[in-house]
């Protein structure tokens, strides 16, 4: 008998509430796409914003709404792109190559002097408001770590010499630091490319560069002459190596009068 009442009570309550909810739910149907949640689960969840949307959820919504590309999550890379494509039922797109941030300045504190002493907020943007920055070279890294601060993946750190160091393992090539650097010294490049590059961004004339930095490119064109592949051009007194032509022969490294040409993958990386 007791068993019976129990069944009736719970069953009755279930019926009453279930019925109420069923009626209510019928009148207030809300469209939901389960794929948003699924994709959101796949994403790294750092809410870094590299995709151009204000967070992972937003990106997922836009992917489902076909407003964002499945490969949009840069930190996620190829794997996540594939998974998203699977959820969305489309063919996989996106590049295979692992990319990392690269810093194009070698002007550490000891080789690229300051023109005056700066006291105040330790932030590159803040420091630039004073006479265009305290560094004598007006293209060089100020070394106050605004880029390191901006990295959502803890992949950039300031070295003892005042230059940032990229942690290649952690770097996801999200590009936040590229935007953070007020001197545009960071770029995203293939992690494993085998070519040489010139870690300098100074467009000053050679004479000026020699005054303000020991490791700046003077645009002397010695490397241009040395390169058997014609992969190097000098524009605005700055040598640029075309990585598609470079065969990594190393002639330019020997030719460079300031010995600043390096293997691309070996600069500023931990």
């Amino acid at each position, binding site marked *: 008998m007791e068993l019976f009442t129990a069944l009736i009570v719970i069953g009755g309550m279930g019926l009453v509430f279930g019925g109420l909810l069923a009626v209510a739910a019928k009148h207030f149907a809300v469209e939901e796409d389960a794929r948003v949640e699924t994709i959101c689960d796949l994403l790294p969840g750092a809410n870094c914003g590299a995709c151009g949307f204000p967070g992972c959820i937003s990106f997922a919504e836009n992917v489902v709404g076909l407003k964002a590309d499945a490969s949009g999550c840069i930190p996620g890379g190829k794997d996540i792109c594939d998974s998203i494509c699977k959820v969305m039922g489309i063919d996989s797109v996106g590049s295979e190559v692992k990319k990392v941030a690269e810093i194009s300045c070698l002007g550490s504190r000891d080789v690229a002097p*300051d*023109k*005056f*002493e*700066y*006291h*105040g*907020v330790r932030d590159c943007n803040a420091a630039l408001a*004073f*006479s265009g920055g*305290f560094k004598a070279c007006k293209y060089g890294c100020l070394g106050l770590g605004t880029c390191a601060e901006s990295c959502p993946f803890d992949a950039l750190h300031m070295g003892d010499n005042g230059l940032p160091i990229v942690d290649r393992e952690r770097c996801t090539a999200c590009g936040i630091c590229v935007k953070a650097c007020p001197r545009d010294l960071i770029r995203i490049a293939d992690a494993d490319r085998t070519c040489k590059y010139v870690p300098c961004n100074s467009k000053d004339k050679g004479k000026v560069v020699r005054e303000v930095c020991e490791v700046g490119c003077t645009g002397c064109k010695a490397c241009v002459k040395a390169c058997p592949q014609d992969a190097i051009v000098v524009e605005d007194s700055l040598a640029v190596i075309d990585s598609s032509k470079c065969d990594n022969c190393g002639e330019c490294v020997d030719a460079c009068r300031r010995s600043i040409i390096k293997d691309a993958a070996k600069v500023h990386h931990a």
Partner: protein
Amino acid sequence: MDKKLVVSSSPHLKSPENIHSIMVDVLVALFPVALMAVFLFGYRALATMVIATLVAMITEAIILRKGNLFGDGSAAVTGLLLAMVLPPAPPWWVVVIGSAVAVGIGKHLFGGIGNNIFNPALVGRAVLVVSWGAHVAGDVWMRPVPFNFTADIVTEATPLATKAASLLDLFIGTVSGSLGETSALALIIGGIWLYYRGHIDWRIPGAFIALVFVFGLFDGGFNMGLYHVLAGGVLLGALFMATDMVTSPVTSVGKLIFGGGCGLITMIIRLFGSYPEGVMFSILLMNSLTPIIDNLTLPKRFGEVKQKNA
């Protein structure tokens, strides 16, 4: 002139005052209180103060990995303040743990100086009260014996429990109680020094003491009002604990509310609660409300009213 010019944002003048100098001022303000404690309770009080201060400084030096033991002086202040709210002669390990907790949990867990939400010294004491109530907040307390440095401990109930001490005894401090709270005279001297140096605002102690006094009136007239102000930790709390810059509101109105709240809660606990003293709880509680008080009492900006009328 061989060095490079210095460039910085305006202003280019800075006041000579810094955190270190403020902390030294607070230590100076605590000196008469400490002196009185040694005078009343003898070497045991001195030992308690030294242990608390040293442990606080060592804890901070370890956490910050700094060789400079004194640092900016804030740890010493925390340690000494903790000693002030402990009995004259608790077991040494109680002092050590309390001091380490005060600096470690009360202060550095929240990000170090300037960032703590609660008064570190009181966090230390609160933890001790809950953990070893009998050692730090029991029913019997060491009786002060001036100029007697070797005497054995004689115990008695606190004036808050008996309500029988004379007002003069309370003012001079010849009553039992926490190490630093008995002598109103010494506390007032310290408070005046802090006020003179501009480190405390009259609003917090003012509102605190005023409310304690008013509630005391209900407990038994003018004398009882004074009694409530002088007995127990009200003066120590109002002048040294509630006025802690980091954990009290920054706005003028906020300071009044803060002080008033402390006084109110103290008296509620004293008159109705199961604890004889409520200063510590009231200040900790108001500490937690500080961010909200600050946000609700933003000062009226220059010229703001006129804009609304226009």
